[in-house]
């Protein structure tokens, strides 16, 4: 009977048991940590109903819930995100464009970043009309700056 084999058998068991214990404990820690990753969201949906398109006058209308500017001009209706592309503050309007209160970034009327730390232009979101006639914005769908929702002329 080889004593060497006996010793290696014992060592195997010792390591096996230690490994089982360590994996067992670390596995519990991993599961407990996984529980902190949220599986459901308590957030409003990305597609939101904004009401009748007629209620938005010419120019810019700010919607605080959606952090959006609804821009109405000769192109039609467009939705510009008011979330600064730098660090997420809500931009305010300036004479010709938009101005961020946090770090002073300036944006043009088409959302282009002009000065300050903002690395990208502001984002435009897709607008559509629901079957009920209500205006819908899809905050998950970005579009080009000149993509506008053309409105049927009044009275036609």
């Amino acid at each position: 009977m080889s004593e060497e084999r006996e010793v290696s058998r014992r060592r195997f068991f010792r390591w096996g048991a230690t490994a089982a214990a360590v994996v067992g404990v670390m596995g519990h820690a991993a599961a407990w940590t996984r529980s902190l990753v949220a599986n459901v969201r308590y957030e409003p949906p990305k597609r939101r109903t904004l009401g009748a398109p007629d209620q938005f006058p010419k120019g810019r209308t700010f919607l605080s819930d959606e952090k959006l500017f609804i821009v109405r001009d000769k192109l039609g209706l467009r939705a510009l995100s008011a979330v600064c592309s730098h660090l997420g503050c809500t931009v305010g309007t300036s004479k010709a464009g938009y101005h961020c209160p946090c770090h002073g970034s300036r944006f043009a009327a088409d959302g282009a970043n002009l000065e300050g730390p903002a690395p990208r232009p502001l984002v435009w979101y897709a607008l559509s009309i629901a079957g009920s006639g209500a205006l819908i914005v899809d905050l998950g769908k970005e579009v080009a700056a000149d993509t506008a929702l053309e409105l049927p002329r009044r009275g036609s």
Partner: protein
Amino acid sequence: MSDDGWSPRALWRGFFPETPREGADAIVQNFLLHALPVRITRRALSWLASGWLGTITLHIFLVLCLTGGVLLFLYVPSIERAYASVKDIEFVVSFGSWIRGTHRISAHLMVAAVVLHLVRVFLTGAYKKEGAPGAFRPLNWWVGIMLMMLTFGLSFTGYLLPWDQLAYWAITVGTQIAGSVPLIGEELRQLMLGGDSVGQPALLRFYVLHCFVLPAFMIYLIAYHMWRIRKDGGLAVTDRVVGDARETARIAPPSPGKTYTLMGATQGVSAQASSPASLLARDSEAGGVSIVRRTIAIFLIVLAVCSLLGLLIPAQLEEPANPAVTPNPAKAPWYFLWLQELVSILTFRVGDTLVDGTLLGGVVIPGILIGLLASWPLLDKSPAAAAGVWFHPSRKRQNRVFLFLLFTALVLTVIGTFFRGAYWAWVWPWDTPHAHTRWI
């Protein structure tokens, strides 16, 4: 130490001692090990002396802190969100039901372990004031009583957090009992509730108690409790080992300051083979190795048992708190049912006087019992030799009294659990339970 048998070398590589002297040094050199004794007698190490119930309780508490820490991220202590957040833990949080189940079953197990620990200490006379010089075990007995009350407090406050029917009515009844305390009762009740009625301030108070105040006291007192064991010269059974060694050596005791901590034993390498010190050295092991190894084993077993039971026995969540409807019967958790039973049977009328069972069963009797437990070490007149011995003949009568009280509480608990139905009336466990009326 040789390579025979398993030791936590893999985890403690680098300071795993090769000789008894190294083992002693490790205690001094390693911060993690500094709380441990250099030597521990084999009798203290065996399961028979103590059942290691204190260590088991400590590790259940550790599991509670870990799972509780996770739940702290998931639970919202507001009366609008609390119930919904527990429902979310049950239904959509990954492993949530398991974590909550583990936390709850661990809480029950901890109450059981604490009580068993107390029973062990009592029956072995380990609280006795007679001991080695410098030792005063009653102090640790008192700390232990406080720890037990903290355990009950933690269980009770934890029970209230889900804000279901169970929680709401437990707070209502619990604070009402506090309100029956003479003179300061009403003020006490209002202090607990943060107002007159059970609402948001009450939930927040019990939440802070459960998650911060009581655990903080608990951790402090546990540390003190364990330090006291060292100050008292180890488990009470060590006194017997030392006594036996002296008896065997049949020589006059050397300076007691050295041997009672066993420190002398490790340094007694060159002493005569028949000296108590060398006898002790032969009958003891390096604490840094044996206790660490035992602690790791207990931690793994405790975590595994709590975790498996948490998987098998999901924690309950009753209907949302409804101030308009009291559940029938509204039962306290099992470890308070003997008190609820007392409150119930001690309320009766003698002639025109109403005996207030709330005050008697909820305040006076628990108060007397705690006072009795606390003063027991001072009342116990048995000889020093009775410390650290199971059922020592000289303690026969007091053991009987203690076991009688314990048994009574146990019987009342069983009655409250299995033999009480709607309106706290007597039912048999095999009776068909009272069917609840549905809405539709």
